[in-house]
């Protein structure tokens, strides 16, 4: 009974905040198969860890921590066979920007292309920054001090600026 309630609660939260997982997958995977696998792995890790989630932090902050830890500690070989037990191919496609204006879509694509040139750590930090997490939260997720977060964000901004200028 308790398990069912826990599962229901988890599924509702995971459904509401699945955008977080999609974003992390898009950030760290180049192809569709890897994105599907990572999406599933993050969900499994979130579900396994959910009983210990006591609401001390926001669910989104907690989910980002699990998702980033899973994505960065993950390793995908370049050549791999497609998984048969994954999603059926219709889901998890590249985002549908039909609600975005042409200019917004172009800017978003530009941003993603620039972010793709960053290192894994830089991607994690800038993603949390763009999601408006506080320096304190970013520091706790990454495991560095608030000052270091500030230093790193400034460096990433400069790097992104120069990439975007090209």
């Amino acid at each position, binding site marked *: 009974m308790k398990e069912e309630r826990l599962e229901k609660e988890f599924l509702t939260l995971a459904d509401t905040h699945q955008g977080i997982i999609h974003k992390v997958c898009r950030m760290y995977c180049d192809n569709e198969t890897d994105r599907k696998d990572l999406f599933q792995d993050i969900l499994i890790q979130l579900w396994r*860890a959910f009983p210990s989630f006591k609401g001390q932090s926001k669910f989104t902050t907690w989910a980002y921590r699990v998702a980033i830890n899973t994505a960065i500690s993950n390793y995908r070989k370049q050549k791999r066979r497609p998984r048969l037990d994954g999603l059926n191919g219709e889901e998890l496609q590249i985002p549908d920007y039909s609600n975005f204006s042409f200019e917004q879509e172009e800017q978003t694509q530009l941003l993603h292309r620039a972010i793709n040139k960053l290192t894994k750590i830089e991607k994690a930090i*800038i993603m949390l920054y763009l999601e408006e997490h506080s320096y304190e939260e970013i520091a706790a997720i990454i495991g560095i001090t608030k000052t270091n977060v500030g230093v790193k964000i400034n460096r990433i901004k400069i790097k992104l600026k120069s990439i975007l200028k090209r």
Partner: protein
Amino acid sequence: MNIDEFKILWQAESAVFQRVDIGEIRRMTKSKATDALSQFSRNILLDIGFLLMFLLVGFVAVLFTQNVLIDWIVLISAIVFIPFFYMFLQRYFYIKNIKLQSESLYNVLNGVIENLSQYTTIYFRAAMILTLIVGPLGVAIGFFNEEMNNPFVQMVQNYPASFLLALSCGLVVIIVGNYFFTRWYLKKLYGNYIEELKACLDELDDLVQLQ
């Protein structure tokens, strides 16, 4: 262009991903994890299983044969493998206890690198010791076993010096070959992964050293 200008667009992007329905999410949570840590812990379990199977086969051989050399091989293997068995178990539980939900990325990276490096060292030593013990003792069984009255043994008895030379060369080739093969195998399996994680950790360490 300022990166802060992208914040609103970035946040709005959450809504444009094609949603996965709850039923599919539920199904995925019940699936087998394929992430690196899960695969790594499964690999350690396989190694533990291999050690246990090796010893089990040995004990069965002891029970059903009356060969003292086999008894010695099994006894020595058991003595050698007990510490490895313990070390593999230790790595397994350490990996199982890495908490992706409460540890910082820095701690996760540190933990995985440390464990993986120790695991590869243990694996390498176990593989080398296995070759060093089982190889020569296996040959000794064949050589000293009087029941094995086959043409090969007779040839060996007729030309003992040539046999010893060939045997020594063979063992050296096997041991050296196993040394390079195990190194190559571990590098192929975990080398790039460890390097990748170290690069991430180094990046964080560089920041820490700034202070």
